[in-house]
């Protein structure tokens, strides 16, 4: 799986794509693959404050419950309501299925996140390949 190079990644398997001072956040292909069939996505309300590294929502597969961790700090400006009705979209198009849009508090926070190449390496190491 080639991970898009237009964004950054976390070791908790989220991606964040910044454009100026706003960014969209979702989970990676590896995340959806290891979760399996996703059946439930719970997102914060517009206006909620996200803190980098802290949980901001939940994604559930048939079998597992997983927390979502904020890749960067900021204020939620929009959530992807599509995923409430069709959570399986995260499986079919993980890198297109953004979950929240945030106004970044400090765009510099993204500098410490993983590049696509580094994330791919991290995933390979983590799964012992």
């Amino acid at each position, binding site marked *: 799986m080639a991970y898009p190079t237009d964004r950054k990644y976390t070791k908790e*398997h989220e991606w964040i794509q910044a454009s100026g001072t706003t960014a969209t956040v979702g989970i990676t292909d590896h995340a959806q693959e290891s*979760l*399996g069939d996703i*059946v439930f996505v719970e997102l914060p309300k517009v206006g909620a404050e996200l803190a980098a590294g802290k949980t901001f929502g*939940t994604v559930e597969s*048939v079998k*597992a419950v997983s*927390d979502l*961790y904020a890749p960067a700090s900021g204020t939620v400006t929009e959530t992807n309501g599509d995923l409430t009705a069709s959570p399986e979209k995260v499986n079919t198009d993980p890198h297109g299925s953004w979950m929240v849009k945030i106004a970044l508090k400090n765009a510099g926070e993204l500098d410490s996140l993983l590049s696509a190449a580094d994330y791919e390496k991290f995933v390979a190491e983590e799964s012992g390949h």
Partner: protein
Amino acid sequence: MSSVETTPATATAVRKTALNAVHRQMGAKMVDFNGWDMPVEYPAAMGCGIINEHMAVRTGVGIFDVSHMGDIRLAGPKALDAVQHISMNDASRLAVGQAQYSALLYPQGTFVDDVIVHRLGEDEYLLVINAGTREKDFNWVRDNTRQFDCAVENLSDDFTQIAIQGPKGVEVLQKLTDADLSAVKFYWVTRGTICGLRDILIARTGYTAEDGFEIYIPADEATSARVWNEILNAGKEFGVVPCGLGARNTLRLEGKLPLYGHEISDTINVWEAGLDRFCKMEKTGFIGRAALEKAAPGVKRTLVGLEMVERGIARDGYKVLDDRGSEIGYVTSGSPAPFLKKNIALAYVPPEFAAVGTAVKVEIRGQSVGAQVVPTPFYKRPKKT
């Protein structure tokens, strides 16, 4: 994102079935289940995943490696007396070739394990037991049957057990055996040649609330892999898929089939679990009977089916609250139900909350989410036409 498996892993040395390499080769996602390295689901790329596997069993056919299940054989002149003493159902009602759901009980009427008792011969019985309780069960059976003239053998490592489940299971297996499967009724067993292997035990049993078979073949890796693959090939025309423990759990939950450590355990008794119809109190002298007789009038909690009426998924261990927010019980098993397309759960609550239609709440991540008591089993397979 950090994943929290709802089935906790244990720290003991991991055991493997003879099909372990086959599962890994197929790309199955493996988990530690009661100390066993088992497939939880197969890859989405091959049409699998828990939901697809579940649906295949409800509408077509799926196959499971259930070799982690244990097997205890009791044989000898007093085998029936021994089985009667340690199990709550009435094995004297079994004809040769018949099987029944039953349980091994502690003297206090709680569960050592639930089992399927098969009567294989005039004086020969086979108990099929759970993976996580293999050693405990065998020791229990051996220690509590010493007074009977019968041999107790642990055959758990002798078999690869493959379950062929779903309405098309009979057609798939019939292609591979000379045994007339149409003559084998649900919860009966026969013997026949399967994939060239002679005298194989074939039981019309399962843990999916669907029609199906479980076969017991020699446990060597080569034979196990060959039979597994031959079943998959024979099932191609019926859309067969390999299924993991994920689908096994959602299938059994829809059918309200109990899981040891969840709906039944050493602290839950037969009345609470609602398994009365498999417990034959008219049978004298079985272990647990006296305590059950005393416990009958005073049941403080009972197993109910819940359906979420608000958005949320109840999971194992979540609290059940009354409509004022007071804790009244807990979820034993909760999951999305892939065939019913609802979020369902089994839970222990006081009897006054057990009536169908009772509104309750499930506490999900600090929020009270609405649910109601519904009839069980959630799913019942359609009657054959």
